[in-house]
């Protein structure tokens, strides 16, 4: 058995481990090599498409017209990005909307997820079973898109407000399940001893459980933030107001033409001294795509260390 596959495993079997490692040294090397080759292939298949899109966004428009997209274009150009930096209003506003939605939404969502997850993780809570059913039944049955649409527009009156982007995504039963799975692994004795010392529930929650749940909070917080960052469906449904367009909706509207972005009043001024024929139309599309995805992709590796610890899917049954 290769020693590295099972770190921190106990000592008693030390002698047997040592023996088997030496006995199988040659076969273990081969299999390790193959595993690494598989992962290198997977890694490349994940990264190369992204890299190619970045390259397209940096390709000179004439080069695209003549040769199509290329891995190594004849001529690089920052024109697409320059265009957006010259009149950054539309992009900046979209960033503003997206960042606001992501931050506020994530905080609210984490509060809801953590408090519900905690309640369900307490084996001594008298209502675990009915509450679990209440929460997880929504994963199995729903009213569908139409009643949801009517609820948000006609009854909650959220159409064309920023809350239409925040409220619908505030709680996911699947994340409650993950949160609950993590919190159930916290030794129950901790809660009991705190109780004996007279701590009340909110104190146990705030001072003991939340700090211990850091990996789970970080992981889920990141996932939730990404969901908000990447949200376009609610925007597609509920946002007509130009001032409330988030990044992804900007991207949706730019998908088939750049008319949307070039017709905006912020650009009128620029257009007059801008040669439309030279406008890097194709590269610009990909530049927006990169700009909309970029910031979050830079953030997430920092949360990576919490991922595995934070992601424990517990059983739904109490």
């Amino acid at each position, binding site marked *: 058995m290769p020693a590295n596959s099972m770190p921190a495993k106990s000592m008693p079997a030390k002698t047997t481990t040592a023996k088997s490692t030496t006995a199988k040294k040659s076969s273990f090397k081969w*299999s390790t090599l193959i595993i690494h080759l598989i992962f290198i292939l997977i890694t490349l298949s994940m990264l190369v498409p992204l890299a190619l899109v970045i390259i397209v966004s940096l390709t000179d428009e004439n080069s695209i017209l003549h040769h199509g997209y290329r891995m190594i274009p004849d001529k690089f150009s920052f024109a697409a990005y320059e265009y957006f930096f010259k009149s950054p209003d539309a992009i900046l506003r979209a960033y503003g909307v997206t960042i606001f939605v992501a931050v506020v939404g994530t905080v609210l969502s984490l509060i809801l997820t953590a408090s519900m997850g905690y309640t369900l993780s307490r084996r001594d809570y008298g209502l675990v079973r009915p509450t679990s059913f209440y929460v997880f039944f929504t994963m199995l049955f729903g009213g569908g898109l139409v009643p949801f649409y009517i609820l948000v527009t006609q009854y909650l009156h959220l159409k064309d407000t920023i809350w239409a982007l925040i409220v619908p995504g505030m709680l996911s039963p699947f994340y409650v399940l993950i949160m609950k799975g993590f919190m159930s692994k916290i030794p129950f004795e901790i809660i009991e001893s705190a109780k004996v010392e007279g701590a009340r529930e909110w104190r146990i929650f705030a001072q003991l459980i939340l700090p211990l749940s850091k990996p789970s909070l970080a992981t889920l917080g990141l996932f939730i933030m990404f969901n908000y960052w990447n949200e376009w469906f609610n925007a597609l449904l509920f946002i007509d107001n130009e001032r409330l367009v988030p990044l992804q909706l900007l991207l949706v509207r730019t998908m088939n033409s750049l008319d949307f972005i070039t017709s905006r009043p912020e650009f009128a001024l620029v257009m007059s001294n801008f040669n439309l024929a030279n406008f890097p139309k194709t590269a610009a599309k990909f530049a927006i795509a990169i700009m909309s995805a970029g910031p979050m992709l830079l953030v997430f590796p920092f949360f990576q260390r919490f991922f595995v610890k934070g992601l424990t899917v517990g059983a739904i049954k109490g």
Partner: protein
Amino acid sequence: MKRGKFLKFVSRNGELFIFSLPAIIYIFIMSYVPMFGVIIAFKNYVYDKGILGSEWVGFKNFKFLFESENAYRITRNTVLYNLGYMFMTTVFSLAVAILLHEVAKKWLKIYQTAMILPFFLSWVVVSYITMAFLDHQNGFLNGWLEGIGLDRVQWYFKANVWPYILNAVHLWKAIGFSALVYFAGILGIDAELYEAAKIDGAKRWQMITNVTLPQLTPLIIILLIMSIGNMFRGDFGLHYFIPNNNGMTYATTDIIDTYIYRALSELGDVSMASAVGLYQSVVGLVLVVAANYTVRKINEENSLF
């Protein structure tokens, strides 16, 4: 006496109940209230009259749906795609998770980061990536095809290639997260089990089949039951943006969700869209209950509820 018992229950559980209250209220409004909205499916919904004021039409909306060929097409597409996604994601991400477990920590981090990257991209961004490959004029794929002397292909107009493209794109985006969930599950397996297997002389492969897989079974089954429940729910973003919402490929790309969206946004047929939605929800529920029932018959421990 009964009253005393109730008070005791409240004093013991009241605080925890208050913790769950915000989420309970939220779920009630966002998930349970819309469930009553399914009656729209049996009405001729008019915005001015509201849900209750609109006139009842019985099963007319459903009749209209099932008499058209659309119902069959979108149902078949939704189910087949989901079966494909379910099978591919489970098999590949399990394999990847097991392999990850064999890799040294330093490499683990690099592979993991690369693999989960696509998970964090929105479908819109992913659609730009697919466009970069499949675009008729400029796309990489046609460039490469031409490079080796083959003809260009109008990918966005060819219906028969989309099942492969969509499956590939789905796997590309989903595998990282799914593998991570399984990997976390593997790390949760009691180390003593591996110890015991080692003492019994188990080889690497035997450890996987005798310890890892059986220990992961409950997790695999929970995730499978949940995806069976979603068998009638498709990924709107995947099927709307990746094929570019192109009418030419509806035959192989249209699913229930994209159909509902079009019925609602392009045709403005609220009642019809609602009928499709209800059909989707009811069949989904039946599927989950059936799957759970089957699992419980085989092994009580593994069932969802």
